[in-house]
């Protein structure tokens, strides 16, 4: 019940100062829940081939079977085990998501730090160029690029990394602009600390909290983009399963075997929810709200 209250207590509510400790506890609980959900995702993803009871690509004459002791979630239209496909399919979906967001984060960090710390012309040029990319509707841009270049895993990763880079760069740049004026940076500079060291040791650690929260939120958005592209047929090529593709394939016979649709739907929602809960927990614990 207290996790419930924690979600309620996020941004916008005016807690009296006496509530401070209480709020921290709720934030920690939310964060704990997020970490537990993330652990489930990671364990299932990493050990997928060991956990999956069947070969996800192996067909059998026993098609569209309901749940049984052998096939917990039944089988799909060509007799493949739905649970095994879900477990292994999570790998593709989450791998694309994680690598793409990591690349966007790396690019966003470099561009945001450069832009915010150096300021002036560099800032102006970087931000204007990113503004153009940012103005593109993310999903439409991703569809166009993947449709043109072909739906392969590297293309998907690169496309998604590019469309999310501007948002990450903005998240980094904002706080850097104010932190670089702070006294401890000035003090470090006056004793002759090099510029690179200033940025990495004195500015970056101060802006890490909002970046962590934004990364978690971006992960939840990216899961939508990846699964939606796969749903449209722009996902990783078959026969490797992925959640969006499974949901799309299963639609044809879903009234005969509802679990073929409910399975991937639940997986997508669980993964998205994980990063939303994580982001809210982190925001509470790291107290990012007070940044603005």
């Amino acid at each position, binding site marked *: 019940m207290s996790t419930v209250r924690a979600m309620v207590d996020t941004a916008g509510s005016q807690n009296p100062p006496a509530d401070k400790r209480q709020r921290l506890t709720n934030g920690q609980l939310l964060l704990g829940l997020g970490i537990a959900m993330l652990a489930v995702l990671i364990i299932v993803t990493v050990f997928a081939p060991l956990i999956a009871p069947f070969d996800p690509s192996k067909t059998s004459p026993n098609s569209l079977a309901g749940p049984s002791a052998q096939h917990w979630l039944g089988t799909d239209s060509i007799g493949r085990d739905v649970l095994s496909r879900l477990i292994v399919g999570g790998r593709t979906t989450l791998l694309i998501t994680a690598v793409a967001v990591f690349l966007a984060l790396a690019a966003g960090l470099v561009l945001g730090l450069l832009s915010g710390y150096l300021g002036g012309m560099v800032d102006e040029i970087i931000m204007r160029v990113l503004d153009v990319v940012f103005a593109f509707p993310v999903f439409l841009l991703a569809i166009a690029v993947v449709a043109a270049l072909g739906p392969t895993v590297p293309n998907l990763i690169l496309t998604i990394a590019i469309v999310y880079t501007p948002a990450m760069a903005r998240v980094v740049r904002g706080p850097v602009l104010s932190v670089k004026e702070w006294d401890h940076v000035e003090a470090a500079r006056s004793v002759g600390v090099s510029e690179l060291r200033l940025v990495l040791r004195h500015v970056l650690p101060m802006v890490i909290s909002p970046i962590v929260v934004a990364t978690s939120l971006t992960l939840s958005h990216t899961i939508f983009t990846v699964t939606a592209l796969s749903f449209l047929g722009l996902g990783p090529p078959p026969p490797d399963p992925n959640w969006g593709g499974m949901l799309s394939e299963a639609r044809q016979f879903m009234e005969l075997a509802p679990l073929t*649709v409910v399975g991937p739907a639940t997986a997508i929602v669980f993964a998205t929810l994980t990063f939303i809960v994580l982001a809210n927990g982190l925001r509470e614990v790291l107290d990012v709200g007070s940044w603005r």
Partner: protein
Amino acid sequence: MIRVVLTRFAWTLVILLGVSFVAFMLMRALPGDFAIAAAGSQSVSPEVLDAIRRDLGLDRPLLEQYFLWLGHALTGDLGRSFVTKQPVLSELPARFVVTFQLTLIAAIIAMTMGIATGLASARMRGRTDWFVRIYNGLILAVPNFVVATLIVLLAGLYFPQLSIFNYTPFLSDPIANLGSLLLPAFSLALAVSVTISENTRAAVLEISSQDFVMVARAKGLLPRTVLRNYLVRNALTPIITVTGLQVASLLGGSILVETIFAIPGMGQYLFDSINSRDYPVIQAIVVLAASVVILVNMLVDIAYARVDARVKA
């Protein structure tokens, strides 16, 4: 004010040029020969391929090709479909109207739901606030294509007599048309309503803590009057802004939802074109949809600047 509008307008033009350039370059970056893709088969004589190249201007420098293409696009010539060999523009307007209608209904549903839950959350606090925020957090994690698929599944399982796949054009039967768009619009609106709800809540909470609201209460105005004339009126600006900025998510989502509900709009057209590798159609739809989003964002910005005297550029 004129300065703000002009700057924003010039900036929008730059972005639109960027969009068109990217869309153009992508179609030239297709793996393989564009002329072969246009011919629709591998076994075409070299003479025919040359004719296609000349016809499409593929033998000219790339930048010249871009401006030629842009000129044609601006005068309404978006090329011919690889599949039907008909001009793209002969099919697109009818599709666009359907998508526009779906998006509009979804926006109305989203605003109604979002403002109602956001207001309830901010005014009643306590248990209602809790409930709304948990609900918002959960719904935010459910993508629109999952909602749509589950609605179709539930309807098929429990209400098989409901025929949800028969889209009726507006002109043949307006009532049946609205009915056929209601469920798709709802699945499209759900996630957007959460964003509107959260923003409504934040806006109302912020405004209700301000002095002029306290003065209004202190001088004995009815709570109802304060709510209507002070809170809602002032919160409306951020709410409309947020709704405007959700157009991208509504248009993007309509691609998925139309495919699921078999609605003959722009989204389903795009889905079919992706599957048949009909690149001119993909290009046209992406450019059109992106332009609509960018133009709406511009209008929202300008409207915001006009309403809010604090915005000065």
